[in-house]
């Protein structure tokens, strides 16, 4: 069954047929959400939201693009909205005393046999995540779709509603920015270690 056949089925007769689309695309949505949020619980929640949103607006899907492109757009928008909400919450939390751990810390690697290597690896993971999160929105979208989802520049351009040339330029600038930011973070970490 093709995507369009399933969509017609959902809209005309069997609403439960939507489950086939969920099965087919849950991994895609989850992986993209991970690229933006770096947290499996948050990504799973977002995946649910995306599919509910897609189900509710399925009657508005005109079929101009493929269903996956449409779903990518919903996922990217939902992820960016989530990030904006988190930023506001984070700002509010600055004024609160809380004992909750940082959710990102729950995803770090732990190896009791080699604590020093574990620490360096965790610092590297955190450093790359910070660098990715600090990219401008469009560069971030391009890099997530390219690196996490392995999409071609043409596919990214279709999702972002832009040209292939613009995507190429976004990816180049994103990589350059990532390198700059990582170098800066590394210098900062080395200085901290020296002080300690």
């Amino acid at each position: 069954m093709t995507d369009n056949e399933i969509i017609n089925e959902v809209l005309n007769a069997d609403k439960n047929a939507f489950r086939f689309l969920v099965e087919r695309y849950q991994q895609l949505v989850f992986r993209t959400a991970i690229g933006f949020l770096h947290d499996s619980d948050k990504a799973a929640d977002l995946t649910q939201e995306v599919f509910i949103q897609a189900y509710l607006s399925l009657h508005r899907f005109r079929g101009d693009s493929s269903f996956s492109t449409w779903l990518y757009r919903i996922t990217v928008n939902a992820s960016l909205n989530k990030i904006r909400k988190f930023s506001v919450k984070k700002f509010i939390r600055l004024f609160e005393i809380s004992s909750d751990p940082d959710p990102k810390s729950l995803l770090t690697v732990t190896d009791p046999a080699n604590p020093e290597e574990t620490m360096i690896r965790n610092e590297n993971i955190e450093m790359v995540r910070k660098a990715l999160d600090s990219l401008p929105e469009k560069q971030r979208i391009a890099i997530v779709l390219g690196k996490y989802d392995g999409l071609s520049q043409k596919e990214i351009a279709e999702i972002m509603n832009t040209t292939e040339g613009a995507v190429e330029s976004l990816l180049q600038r994103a990589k350059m920015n990532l390198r700059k930011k990582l170098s800066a973070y590394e210098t900062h970490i080395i200085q901290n270690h020296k002080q300690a």
Partner: protein
Amino acid sequence: MNCRQCIHEIDSFHDETLAPDLRTQVLAHLKECSSCAEIYRLQVLIDEVIEQEKEMLPDPFLSTRINSRIEKMNGREPVPGIFTNRLLRPVLITLSMAAAIFMGIIMGNLAVTSRQPVALPAELALINDAGLENIEMFTGE
């Protein structure tokens, strides 16, 4: 090969999609040039972290949870649309809040009425506690 060419080819070098002769040239340059080697090291680091994150899997019941939520929605509202989502819901919320406030006011008024003291007889109301008669006035009788 110069630094500019090397950086241009660094992604393909890392993805192992470069032609063998070009690959040899990039490799030779990376051995000589520390700044390009540093860029390559950061590139490897970024890709390692991304690969690690890509290995995260959703829990196996995610699709079941999504489907059950959608089934519940189907049971409640078969065709959710703009009317139900954007118009009817805020109106209903506003109406229910207004009804709750109205009921609160009525109940509050009832409570106040029940707590008011029973009206005193006129003769008792006229008694001035501060100017009561001397007790001897009664005991002398």
